[in-house]
């Protein structure tokens, strides 16, 4: 009995923002969800996957966000309430389907969650996806806390059905990954079966239909604007002369800043942010002395503030990013907001950090885990190509293996987005004399590697494509993918063979090698470098985190130890293989930290003195 599913009305539970979104969807009677994982959205899908059977709904992992978007659009058009969730850049992948799903509109409630990542904790950019609501016309809700995330997720389905439009539910890392007290409401019975009532002159967007539907969309947006003006999610707090306009996570920092700075404040806290509630805003600013806009990333609300203050209050001073008082970079925190407000009001700001002695601290960046099969692959690549490193280029992709950028491997030269390693290799191979050696993981290959590979075969490129197959979606938390034999409901699923896909794309040179088998890997790389065409090496070994857990369960787990009598202190294991479980002691000895060792044995394989062996 999962409390998230069966908790009754009035239950209070500590929930992650992402878990709260699932509870909100359940309260609304959601019947279907499909998604591709991506931080900071992943726990929404993890939670759906965990509870789907218990809640009597369907959840599936899609190969990418575009397929997920198309899937849920059809589900909702057939009368079943549906949700898809993705990280901010995932919406770029889904954007083609998303933009036009607004023209066709929906029948049952359809909610698209975009989880943005200001400060790029786990992302390649920090784009502000609120702008997607502006270019698409999709109404948008922006929660500030887990409880609000739950309430908005629930309400989003109602708004969606009333307007017959998809809704964008936009979170950020500090909403999705914040845990707070969430109070449950009643849960509606899910509806999981529908029927698609055909209406080609609405759902088939040929130009004549699209022209008509765009007009309908603009009418719906006007209706939505009135809803935003009256929404319970848009509220005024306080009654001072200094006005603040805010939304999302920034609201939390603002609340504490105005209290700490003892400001006579009046806050317009927006949750229904697109269409901009212009009526409410114009009322709000009537008697203000000034307006300060507090929002992360782009000056999104700020621009509307300029537009909608012109009529009644053209004299109103507006402070924000355009006046240089607030940063456009990175996520906010209580200090950033307090400092920025102080600068607007001319108040003295004292840096709250304590004085401390300067001690040089070594960095602790994220690294490939001990035992990671990507490490042994990179070790082999370095060994084969180290002396020719200017003759090769290493396009990489999105996943744990991006950490190959760290020394000592330094195998990562170019990265744009999911799937870009093979796409960009098409360019490098044509105009340079450098051999592209592109890396991609199994899940990312299914997501967006296939098209680039076909392109390379078709255009007769010379490159090596290395598919690092650890048989999971490791970075985001080990979600299933089409190569794993398991689906989002937790059931057995057909395995899509990567090797068959590669061959089906027309690749003639393919090798599958165990990632821990260094001699075989080196041989494969040497041969691939001689091949004049597209070469694919599938370096295959299960993720070390999963494998060591399985070994522990089976009672076959053993760590490794260095025999100090045999060790010749060459540091190949600690500095060249650079497994984080091996450190050099103050006395200069290489030591395996058995707390961290996953028992992969690769260090024993690289040790020239045969000094490393299993602890039995």
């Amino acid at each position, binding site marked *: 009995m999962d409390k998230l599913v069966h908790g009754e009305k009035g239950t*209070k539970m*500590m929930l*992650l923002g992402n878990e709260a979104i699932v509870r909100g969807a359940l309260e609304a009677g959601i019947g279907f969800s499909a998604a591709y994982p991506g*931080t*900071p959205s992943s*726990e929404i899908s993890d939670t759906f996957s965990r509870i789907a059977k218990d809640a009597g709904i369907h959840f599936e992992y899609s190969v990418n966000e575009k397929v997920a978007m198309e899937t849920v659009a059809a589900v909702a058009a057939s009368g079943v309430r549906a949700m898809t969730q993705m990280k901010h850049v995932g919406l770029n992948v889904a954007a083609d389907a998303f933009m036009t799903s607004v023209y066709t509109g929906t029948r049952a409630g359809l909610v698209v969650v975009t989880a943005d990542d200001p400060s790029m*904790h*786990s992302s390649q950019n920090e784009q502000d996806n609120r702008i997607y609501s502006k270019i698409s016309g999709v109404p948008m809700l922006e929660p500030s*806390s887990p409880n609000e995330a739950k309430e908005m997720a629930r309400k989003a389905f109602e708004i969606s059905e009333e307007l017959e439009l998809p809704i964008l539910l936009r979170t950020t890392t*500090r909403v999705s*990954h*914040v*845990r*707070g*007290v969430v109070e449950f409401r009643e849960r509606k019975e899910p509806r999981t079966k529908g029927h698609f009532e055909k209406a080609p002159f609405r759902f088939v967007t040929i130009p004549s239909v699209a022209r008509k539907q765009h007009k309908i969309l603009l009418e719906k947006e006007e209706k939505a604007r009135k809803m935003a003006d009256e929404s319970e999610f848009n509220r005024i707090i306080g009654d001072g002369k200094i006005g603040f306009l805010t939304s999302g*996570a920034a*609201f*939390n*920092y603002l*609340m*504490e800043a105005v209290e700490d700075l003892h400001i006579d404040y009046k806050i317009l806290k927006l949750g229904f942010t697109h269409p901009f509630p212009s009526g409410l805003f114009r009322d709000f600013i009537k008697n203000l002395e000034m307006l300060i806009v507090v929002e992360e990333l782009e000056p999104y609300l700020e621009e509307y503030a300029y537009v909608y203050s012109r009529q009644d209050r053209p004299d109103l001073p507006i402070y924000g990013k355009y006046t240089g008082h607030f940063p456009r970079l990175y996520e906010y*925190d*209580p*200090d950033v907001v*307090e400092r920025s407000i102080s600068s607007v009001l001319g108040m003295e700001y004292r*840096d*709250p*950090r*304590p*004085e*401390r*002695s300067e*001690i*040089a*601290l*070594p*960095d*602790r*960046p*994220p*690294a*490939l*885990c001990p035992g990671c099969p990507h490490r042994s692959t990179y070790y082999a690549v370095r060994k084969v190509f180290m002396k020719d490193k200017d003759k090769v280029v290493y396009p990489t992709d999105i996943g*744990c293996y*991006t*950490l190959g950028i*760290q*020394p*000592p491997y330094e195998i990562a030269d170019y990265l744009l987005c999911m799937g870009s390693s093979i796409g960009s290799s098409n360019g490098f191979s044509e105009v340079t004399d450098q051999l592209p050696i592109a890396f991609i993981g199994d899940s990312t290959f299914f997501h967006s590697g296939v098209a680039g590979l076909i392109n390379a075969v078709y255009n007769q490129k010379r490159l090596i494509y290395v598919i690092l197959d650890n048989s999971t979606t490791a*970075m*985001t*938390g080990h979600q299933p993918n089409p190569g794993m034999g398991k689906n989002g409901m937790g059931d057995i699923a057909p395995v899509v063979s990567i090797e068959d896909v590669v061959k089906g794309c027309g690749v003639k040179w393919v090798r599958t090698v165990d990632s821990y088998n260094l001699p075989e890997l080196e041989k494969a790389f040497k041969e691939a470098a001689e091949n004049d065409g597209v070469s694919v090496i599938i370096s295959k070994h299960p993720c070390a985190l999963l494998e060591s857990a399985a070994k522990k369960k089976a009672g076959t787990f053993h760590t490794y130890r260095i025999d100090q009598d045999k060790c010749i202190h060459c540091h190949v294991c*600690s*500095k060249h293989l*650079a497994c*984080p479980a091996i*450190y*050099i002691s103050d006395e200069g000895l290489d030591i395996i930290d058995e*707390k*961290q060792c996953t028992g992969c044995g690769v260090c024993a394989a690289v040790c020239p003195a045969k000094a490393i062996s299993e602890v039995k």
Partner: protein
Amino acid sequence: MRINIHIVGVGGQGILTASKILANAALAEGLNVIMSEVHGMAQRGGVVESSVRIGDVHSPIIGNGKADVILSFEPLEAYRALDKANGNTKIVTNIEPMVPFTVTIGEGQYPPVAMMLEGMKKVTPYVHSFDAFALAREAGTEKAANVVMLGALSALDILPISPEKMKEMVGFTVPAKFRDVNMKAFDLGYKAVKG
């Protein structure tokens, strides 16, 4: 009332579990609580930070100089987190280092633990340091180090949560077969601070 607990360490040390137990104990005491945590790429052997804030709070992040407690699972990370401290902050830190790979490959040095503890004491007189892993081993398993830390936190007399309630929440959270070990780990952590 506002209580700010900043928790730091390295991925894999059980920091999120400890933070969740603390937050759930606060909820069980009928208090408002908000917590922020780190997922995704940052978790792969990097610094892990979590904040638990109890009482009249909105922000999930603790401002600089505003931590009432810094609970650190690793001495270097305790020192790195000092921006959050003030002259009254209670620092509770494990002293067994986890050496980052950057040091192993020759990019930087791990500062002596004693020097870092000295540096912390210049910021606040309330520094409690002990080997949490040794205490966890004494309790029965190194994995219980996070519960040792929770026991130590409960001994500070700063939480609006009774040590009994916290211990009850630990027992409620860990698997039944590890319950006794964790109860012992909690007590050892408690004694490490209370003496």
